[in-house]
């Protein structure tokens, strides 16, 4: 099943991982060390973040480095901006309707 971006961001540890990755690319081992977690626990979080494309991987020699995928986050923010725009449109329509009704009632 495709990972849900909301679920991914809802977890405080994953948000912390994203914050850290936004500053520098890290290997799973380095992440485990920084967060004082087991490799298994880190792998689980990586899997979730990777599947919803919030992070990207890059092979460097024998190591895999994970990067923050800012583009995906922007996409998400873009979605929300569109959602906001829809509401604005609806409310402007309601303004017009309220004006019309008030005129009729006068």
């Amino acid at each position: 099943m495709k990972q849900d971006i909301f679920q991914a961001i809802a977890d405080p540890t994953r948000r912390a991982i994203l914050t850290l990755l936004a500053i520098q690319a890290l290997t799973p081992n380095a992440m485990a060390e920084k967060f004082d977690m087991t490799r298994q626990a880190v792998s689980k979080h990586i899997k979730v973040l990777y599947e919803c494309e919030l992070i990207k991987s890059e092979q460097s020699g024998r190591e895999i480095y994970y990067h923050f995928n800012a583009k995906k986050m922007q996409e998400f923010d873009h979605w929300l901006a569109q959602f906001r725009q829809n509401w604005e449109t609806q409310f402007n329509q309601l303004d017009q309707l309220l004006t019309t009704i008030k005129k009729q009632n006068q």
Partner: protein
Amino acid sequence: MNNDLLFDFNVDKAAKTVYITREFNAAQSLVWDAFTKAELLDQWMAPAPMRAKTKYMDFKVGGRRFYAMISPDGQERWAVQEFTFITPKTNFKMYNAFADKDENRELPGSDWDYNFSEENGITKVSITIYNESFERLEKLLEGFRIGFTMTLTNLENLLSTLSEKQ
């Protein structure tokens, strides 16, 4: 037209909650009607050129509104609202879920909480939407996604209204 009227839109991604606050230049009872009466809801709730059509609405606790958003090419997106709490003129809560044309709901849906208050003839409406998943929010948007045309049409309408008033 409504430069002084508040419009707030905040998303708490961690809490999967959207907070919307908007002021309207009308009395609380009229704004309440616009949010709770089908014949009024259908006139503003779908962003043009989409339109909304309510098949039936039974506004009482446990009652439902069954409605569709219809796109210009005739596609219908049905949804069911179930009212779970009502304090007349000040608050109502509902559970909203998409459905097929036979009213079979697609769960999970989202929880909506509406609050109304009036001060100096201005009515403030605060809406809280809790979504269990982003996919759900995505669907909410998809329900009326028609790209730029919509925005531009509405902008045109708004501009013509504004210029008429001058």
